[in-house]
């Protein structure tokens, strides 16, 4: 396939459930490429000698190489190629913000649309799973070393897989009754089907990793107890981000106000949308205002839209569309599904009657100079207050850190915001001997792929550490 010919093929659209069909359905929105579509899209890749896309990927997936294999119809080989650096491609293909990472740097994107790297990654991984061709890699001979992983999100799962491959005995301790972290309780089914997360957990179990749920480390066992009484040679702390931020405005304790974490956990983890078959309820609301502009806000809003009683969902965001951090695809899908996007508006008070939410008082904003995040700072316009009618408010402003491990481990250094400090970032090592950390608990809320990258680096760091002891 010559390069000049490749340029002429447009980026292949992805088949999806129609907006109407999916607006009340929790089934996955996107069907993904068929083999023919994937091969055609793969031929668009120019096979650059110095691929810029790879530099844009936090874990440097061998992008041109795997795409070449897809173009040749060697889908399983393609999946294995990706897995050399990225152990959860079925997940990242669906949730990475590709437009800010690999695809942002694709040279085709200069004039035309970039290669659909994320979709191809997803396709290869799905193909391998659906064909039942997932194989357990060859495990190194047992080293006799035991590693504890605290928290079963993407960081922990990645580290566990890599450490098991290196011949270590790995036990994951997870606080909830279900492993997966945000992949399970946060990101909804219609974007990331739970079967995919379950398949990854099965894969780890086949590799000999033990997953213990219902273990809140820091409470039931301290890090020191794990290393002294339980014989673990090293610990990886990957407990993710913690308590959600609220707005700090009047009315936040009214009934009908939720953090996005609570709202999503009720639905994803606890199946509140199947109440009363499942016991966890979610109150039936009609008009829901979601505050924020990130993936969490979009997930909460689109989840709200799918609940049977919902008539209208608004995203209220204090900046403009350009500053929204949610993935482009989610914003596009949300628009198609009928979300109302309200920009440059900021809640100043949640209104209520008889203890329940009745609306939100907002203020109009304008954009000023860029702030410390590099985004233009929103400035309130005096006298522009107005009321939005709503019977529920979901707050999606991000989250702080979970205090449990740091509270109960004296010699583990944290920063002013409670995030675990690394003493050697190359190997994810903390101030405490034998303890490594990575993912959101170190960086603050970030991305799945960066958490996985940290898990990978930690696995190598931990391997060197335990083998030298």
């Amino acid at each position, binding site marked *: 396939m010559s390069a000049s010919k490749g340029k002429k093929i447009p980026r292949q659209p992805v088949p999806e459930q129609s907006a109407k069909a999916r607006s009340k359905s929790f089934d996955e929105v996107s069907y993904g490429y068929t083999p023919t579509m994937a091969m055609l899209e793969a031929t668009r890749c120019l096979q650059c000698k110095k691929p810029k896309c790879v530099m844009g990927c936090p874990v440097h997936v061998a992008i041109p190489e795997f795409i070449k294999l897809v173009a040749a119809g060697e889908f399983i080989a393609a999946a294995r190629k990706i897995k050399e650096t990225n152990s959860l491609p079925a997940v990242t293909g669906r949730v990475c913000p590709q437009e800010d990472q690999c695809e942002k740097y694709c040279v085709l994107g200069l004039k035309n649309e970039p290669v659909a790297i994320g979709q191809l990654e997803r396709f290869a991984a799905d193909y391998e799973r659906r064909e039942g061709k997932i194989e357990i890699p060859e495990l190194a001979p047992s080293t006799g070393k035991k590693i504890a992983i605290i928290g079963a999100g993407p960081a922990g799962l990645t580290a566990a897989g890599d450490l098991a491959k290196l011949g270590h005995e790995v036990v994951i301790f997870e*606080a*909830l*009754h279900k492993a997966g972290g945000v992949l399970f*309780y946060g990101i909804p089914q219609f974007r990331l089907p739970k079967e995919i997360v379950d398949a990854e957990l099965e894969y780890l179990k086949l590799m000999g990793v033990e997953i213990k*749920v*219902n*273990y*809140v480390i820091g*409470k*039931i*066992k301290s890090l020191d107890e794990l290393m002294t009484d339980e014989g673990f040679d090293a610990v990886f702390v990957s407990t*993710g981000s*913690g*308590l*959600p931020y*609220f707005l*700090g405005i009047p009315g*936040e*304790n*009214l*009934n*009908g106000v*939720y*953090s996005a*974490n*609570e709202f999503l*956990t*009720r639905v994803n983890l*606890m*199946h509140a949308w199947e*109440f*009363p*078959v*499942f*016991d*966890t*309820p*979610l*109150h039936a609301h009609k008009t829901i205002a979601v505050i924020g502009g990130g993936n969490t806000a979009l997930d909460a809003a689109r989840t709200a839209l799918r609940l049977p009683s919902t008539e209208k969902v608004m995203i209220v965001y204090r900046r403009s569309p350009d500053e929204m951090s949610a993935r482009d695809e989610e914003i596009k899908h949300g628009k198609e599904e009928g979300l109302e996007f309200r920009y440059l508006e900021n809640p100043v008070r949640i209104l209520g009657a008889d*203890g329940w939410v009745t609306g939100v008082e907002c203020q109009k904003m304008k954009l000023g100079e860029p702030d410390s995040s590099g985004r233009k700072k929103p400035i309130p316009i005096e006298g522009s207050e107005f009321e939005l009618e709503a019977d529920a408010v979901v707050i999606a402003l991000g*989250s702080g850190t*979970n*205090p*449990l491990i740091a509270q109960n481990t004296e010699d583990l250094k944290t920063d002013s915001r409670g995030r675990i400090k690394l003493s050697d970032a190359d190997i994810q090592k903390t101030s405490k001997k034998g303890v490594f950390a990575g993912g959101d608990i170190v960086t603050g809320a970030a991305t799945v792929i960066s958490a996985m990258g940290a898990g990978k680096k930690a696995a190598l760091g931990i391997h060197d550490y335990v083998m030298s002891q």
Partner: protein
Amino acid sequence: MFEIIDKQRLAAGVFRYVVQAPEIAKKAKAGQFVILRLNEHGERFPITIADWDSGQGTLTLFVQAIGKTSIEMSLLHGGDSILDLVGPLGLATEIENFGTVALVGGGFGIAAIHPIARELTQAGNKTISIMGSRNRDLLLMQDEMKKVSSEVRVATDDGSLGTEGLVTDVLNDMIDKGEIIDRVIAIGPLVMMKAVSELTRPLKIQTRVSLNPIMVDGTGMCGACRVTVGSEMKFACVDGPEFDGHRVDFDGLINRLKTYRPEEKKSLDQFSQVVDDECRLGNL
């Protein structure tokens, strides 16, 4: 799975369970709680750890059968199992020698007061337990409370045992008669804890109350358990469940606990139907 070793009915709708959970039992402290999930369809349900035996590896839990989950649990017996049990959660009660401590337990709250009374007595305090309930038949754990407290006072609404009236009447009376109280710990219905806090506020007696807001994860992730203490937002599962009673916004919490009333009723109605059907079929 966590096996139920023993179950006893203590009063109408009140049951005591002994559950096998050795690792939690080893770490449990007075004032902490666990979250359980009975089965795959279950909700995550917080329960105070009423007692523990690290030697036997067991926890004692009290359940008052009033909602779907608690009634479903009341149908479980020794030999049955609970699917998920996680803990110990929350911060433990502060145990020190404070001097004289009044422990006020209302209704079902007495089960939570019991281990705290024991620990405080062991720490050298003079412990005066004030137990309240609607009538004598509903009063829990009288003998057990006598064993672990320096003194026990009882108040019942109908006067069928002890003083006729409320626990606050007893507390007020004691203070009037010159008993110097250094600290109060109150656990029970929110209105009771609020009344106790109102009583002790002008007297500046340090008062601790144990709150039971709505919870989902119980690990500091979801924010459902937020309560206003002073002017701050606190999270009962990681910052509590005990707080300074003089600073808690009880009215806000009382309102928030109403959130799922309609759904709780629906869940219970549907469940009652199932239970009735099963009974009719002779399965229960």
